[in-house]
């Protein structure tokens, strides 16, 4: 595309979010609980997209901002122009994975999401032990939360045997049709 709004148009097509609606009031950032921890906060991210410059777009996709976003919806709840930032973040994360440019700082977060989905891919339900085990392997954070395990067991909060959905084929089919790879 040779237009001067290729990036924003593509985003709008995929998500129905029109980033040009944003007039940079910053209210989203002002209310964001993690704004301080992000490389740059949401309103700045939108400004980067508004420029429609490829280098700014890749800056966005490489940032940890999109992974830190908790989808708590504080931003859209208050946005005077109803720019759906959470939905935008979902899209940017997917794009970031596609382009294989996930921020190294955000790798644990993505690993967690993948472990989570893998856990339900085969059983249909989440098993927290499997989830934690896979997450630890993926991130090599072998000692994290180990202290929690005994007390969790005592309190009956962990189950070793995974519960499964009866119609497992159905679940696997859903995964195969939507997301082929969770590695």
């Amino acid at each position: 595309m040779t237009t001067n709004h290729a990036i924003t148009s593509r985003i709008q097509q995929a998500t129905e979010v029109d980033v040009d609606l944003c007039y940079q009031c910053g209210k989203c950032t002002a209310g964001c609980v993690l704004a301080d921890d992000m490389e740059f906060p949401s309103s700045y991210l939108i400004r980067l997209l508004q420029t429609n410059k490829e280098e700014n777009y890749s800056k966005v996709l490489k940032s940890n901002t999109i992974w830190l976003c908790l989808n708590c919806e504080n931003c859209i709840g208050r946005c005077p122009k109803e720019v759906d930032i959470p939905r935008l973040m979902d899209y940017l994360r997917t794009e970031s994975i596609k382009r294989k440019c996930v921020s190294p700082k955000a790798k644990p977060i993505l690993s967690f999401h993948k472990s989570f989905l893998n856990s339900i891919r085969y059983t249909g339900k989440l098993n927290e032990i499997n989830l934690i085990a896979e997450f630890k392997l993926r991130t090599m954070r072998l000692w994290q939360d180990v202290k929690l395990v005994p007390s969790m067991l005592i309190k009956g909060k962990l189950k070793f045997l995974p519960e499964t959905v009866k119609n497992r084929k159905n679940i696997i089919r859903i995964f195969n049709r939507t997301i082929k790879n969770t590695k």
Partner: protein
Amino acid sequence: MSRIGVFICHCGENISATVDCERVAQEAGRLEGVEFATDYKYMCSDPGQTLIKNAIKEHHLDGVVVGSCSPRMHEATFRKTCAEAGLNPYMCEIANLREHVSWVHEKGEATTRKAIQIVTGLISKVQRNKPLNTIKVPVTKCALVIGGGIAGIQTALDIANCGQKVIMIEKSPSIGGHMSQLSETFPTLDCSQCILTPRMVEVAQHPNITLYTYAELDKLEGFVGNFKATIRLKAKSIDYSKCTGCGLCTTKCPNKKIPSEFNEGLGMRTAIYVPFPQAVPNKPVIDKEHCLYYQKGKCKICSKSCPTGAIEYDKPDEFMTIEVGAVVVTTGFNVLKTDFFPEYGYGKYKDVITGLQFERLASASWPTLGEIRRPSDGKIPQKVVFIACCGSRDPAKGIPYCSKICCMYTAKHAMLYQHKVHGGDSTVFYMDIRAGGKNYEEFVRRAIEEDHVNYVRGRVARVYEKDGKLIVKGVDTLLGAEPVEIEADMVVLATAGVASKGAEELAQKMHISYDPYHFFAEAHPKLKPVETNTAGIFLAGACQAPKDIPETVAAASGAAVKVVSLLSQENLVREPIVAVVNRCAPPLFSTCVGCFMCETICPYHAIEHEEIKDRKTGAVIKTIAKINPGLCQGCGTCVSFCRSKSIDLEGYTNEEMYTEVMALLNH
């Protein structure tokens, strides 16, 4: 047999260069009913007009077709020429041979033939034309001004000073409006009441102005020059002819805990009250909703304390019908209250206030004599945050438009605060500073440069209270969107200006249009800014859109001139191009069958019901439509809608138009 005269103009060479004008005249002359036909170089010139006049007299013409430039150019000229020769001006039609023929076609047979066809069509039309007389409507020499804020005051005074009568109605107990609530005014920082109150008094004392407070418009009928307004005079429960305004009653009233409208709920008033010390008229009314006597049937302390026996309970509202020639609507605006804003606490924090409330806190007439103390505990706030664009430019929850006045008053507030609280710290969160206006930008810069108000570009997401402080979570977008958190003692919201309550209902009563936000709509955004689409009804001030005082006063004077120019005429003269419902012999009286489906089609509400009554018994025989010629603007939409062809449009009748079309084609 008709005697039509045809006059073909060469327009120098503008027409004759491509149209054979001589031949057009010749061919026209051969047509049935044409008595005289000629061509001439400049028909609009003096000799040209004399030629027409002479021909009319000499040949006893009963109709004229001038083939010349566009009727939008010279129709009025030639009609006047005909009138001067004793021919009814509406017996003259213009064939547009210049803009629609000679200037758009090449020279040739087809072009001349087209000219002949156009002339032919109009010759046939003019044969069907009827002489019409301009409509004269008498004018009632009095104006009604609805609303007694600065807009209404200025309008009323300007009209009255031109020697015309004015009736002003104001729904609250005193005139003065929002301006009377303000402390100082931008960009000069002069005291609002000091400049306003003399004018309020002038209104009350002006021999040409009759003021009714506590009064509302109930009904408006009629049309330009001839309105009939019904006014509801709400019962004040006080006989003003006896009341001396001593105020004793207000000190005795036991119900003292009613949030005062004038003080935006920050102060309290009694049930019998004068809204503020400088009120005009300076006499109390009883607020029935809060009066113990009206609510519980007991009390009457005010009556007992009144030295003149002026209190009169249980008098009903009265209705008064007045006749006026023009109406000016100056009903002003409202601002959103703090409870509109969830993220700023739904109005539950006492120290989160609106700009209008800040005006009261900063006003010299406030109990603290203008010393700024916060509402919750009366402490002097050391840190104040001002938030601009509260509800404005917020299509999601507020209103999409810019309220326009907030940038300036917020700068003024911050400046007043800095002047009054030495060592105080004020922050303004803004998105853009819109300070277009004489001395406005300079004013805002002064706030920043001289009074050191901290301007931060960004919106505030949330305000919450902790340990007696208001935590304001904002952002500085100029620092790469850096979150900013301020622990403030008071937060002032520049809440959006919105249409006044009941604006929609009022507009419907008057048949004027309003925009999606219920602000009244002007007839043209640029060229008719104080007119409405209904002739004779004008607008001024913030009932039209948020406006500051200078703009409001300018609009008010503008509206006043429109009213005065209307009222200074004995009669309104209107083009007779209006629709009429036919009448015929009994027993039909009219072919109109009274289905009234045409009522909704008329943009001017000109279609009325007319009862045809038996002359002897007075019994209604039939109800038919009647077009009010004062309201009708002559669009003719009702004419082509009417199934039984009972309505026709003078100047463009069915027969005239039918004949023109058929004649065009038959030639």
